[in-house]
């Protein structure tokens, strides 16, 4: 392996990475609550994450008759764990926890894990609402996952590497978002998809009483909900080395730029949720396959032609 462009820090720093991730996710919850309160004309809402967490910590856990409890709990807690695993390969400026030479594939691996987790959380409750919710998510997954994979490949082609650090370093002159905007947009669609967020939340929607969430209470609900926000945060943070130049930027040090860019992407995703209707799986299936997938493949073609022509 060639000389690495990022420094791998000892494992102990994982604690700091975890704290940063939680902090950003906390911001996402607060922003969402504040926007929600503003739309309702009530104001406030910034303190919501604390109140919500306290409520769920005080609330009793419940189980349903003949529930598949083990699988159900794996689904919930797995969401939280998965988001942490995802950020392990994101370089914070010049440091990274794990400089995998297949970092991009690692991201992909973790996001596919969400399929199993959400479905398990829906299945385990032995409730019709949860079951319908779980399958709704799988239907979404079948439609968003392939375009997401092709979007992930675009920066890797341009950098000639699957290491996240090298992809970020390859954007010295011009950020990838500038000449692969389609891949960037498809990537963000994928991020909202695996976070079960915004338009991709029919699995948790009101029409089926919260779907996968319908039977969860107490800390079991807390870990699943936190997991969603953490995944949204991790996905937003991953777009920074992939498309937004990593730590590149004037004045501020690299790590600060990574955080600033992550917060901006995250804020946009949180804000958009309120304006975009739910994409019902049956409608999105066709969009995913007939619009997003060819678009992402074409983007890859353009990117590979450009790199071959230049290099």
């Amino acid at each position: 392996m060639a000389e690495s462009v990022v420094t791998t820090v000892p494992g102990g720093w994982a604690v700091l990475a975890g704290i940063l991730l939680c902090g950003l996710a906390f911001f996402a919850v607060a922003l969402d609550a504040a926007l929600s309160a503003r739309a309702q004309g009530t104001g406030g809402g910034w303190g919501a994450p604390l109140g919500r967490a306290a409520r769920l910590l005080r609330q009793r856990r419940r189980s349903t008759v003949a529930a598949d409890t083990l699988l159900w709990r794996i689904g919930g807690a797995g969401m939280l764990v998965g988001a942490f695993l995802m950020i392990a390969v994101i370089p914070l400026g010049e440091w990274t926890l794990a400089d995998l030479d297949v970092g991009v594939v690692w991201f992909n691996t973790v996001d596919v894990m969400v399929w199993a987790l959400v479905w398990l959380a829906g299945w385990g409750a032995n409730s019709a609402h949860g079951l319908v919710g779980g399958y709704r998510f799988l239907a979404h997954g079948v439609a968003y996952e392939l375009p997401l994979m092709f979007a992930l490949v675009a920066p890797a082609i341009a950098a000639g590497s699957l290491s996240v650090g090298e992809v970020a370093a390859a954007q010295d002159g011009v950020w990838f978002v500038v000449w692969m905007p389609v891949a960037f947009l498809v990537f963000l669609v994928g991020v909202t998809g695996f976070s079960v967020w915004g338009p991709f939340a029919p699995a948790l929607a009101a029409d089926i009483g919260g779907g996968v969430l319908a039977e969860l209470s107490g800390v079991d609900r807390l870990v699943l909900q936190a997991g969603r926000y953490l995944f949204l945060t991790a996905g937003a943070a991953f777009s920074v080395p992939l498309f937004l130049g990593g730590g590149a930027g004037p004045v501020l040090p690299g790590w600060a730029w990574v955080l600033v860019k992550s917060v901006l992407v995250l804020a946009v995703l949180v804000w958009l949720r309120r304006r975009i209707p739910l994409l019902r799986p049956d409608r999105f299936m066709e969009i995913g396959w007939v619009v997003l997938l060819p678009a992402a493949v074409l983007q890859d073609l353009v990117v590979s032609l450009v790199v071959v022509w230049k290099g």
Partner: protein
Amino acid sequence: MYSGIVAMALVALSVVVLLYALHRAAVITAEPLTVLPAQSGWMPQEHALSRFHARWYLASIVFLAFDVEMLFMYPWAVVVIEKGISAVVEMFLFLGALLVAVAWAWREGAFRWA
């Protein structure tokens, strides 16, 4: 190389354990309650765990075909600069063939199921 990932997994697991411990300390009763599934208050007529009719099974089969292709795509992405235009032509002929299959599946209605 993987120590960072292992460390991260440990941190994540300890967050889960911490949350469950906090809950145990703060909750009104640690023992979970067993209830009927929510059905607007009606008694459930049967268990929900059943053979669910996933009507998009055709799409999932098309997905599988394409998904396997990603095995080639990732390594290919790394060497495309080295190998030059021939690699691009080969890969996109292959992808083109798959997209023709997708178009055919679309025409057959594999992605419409509502």
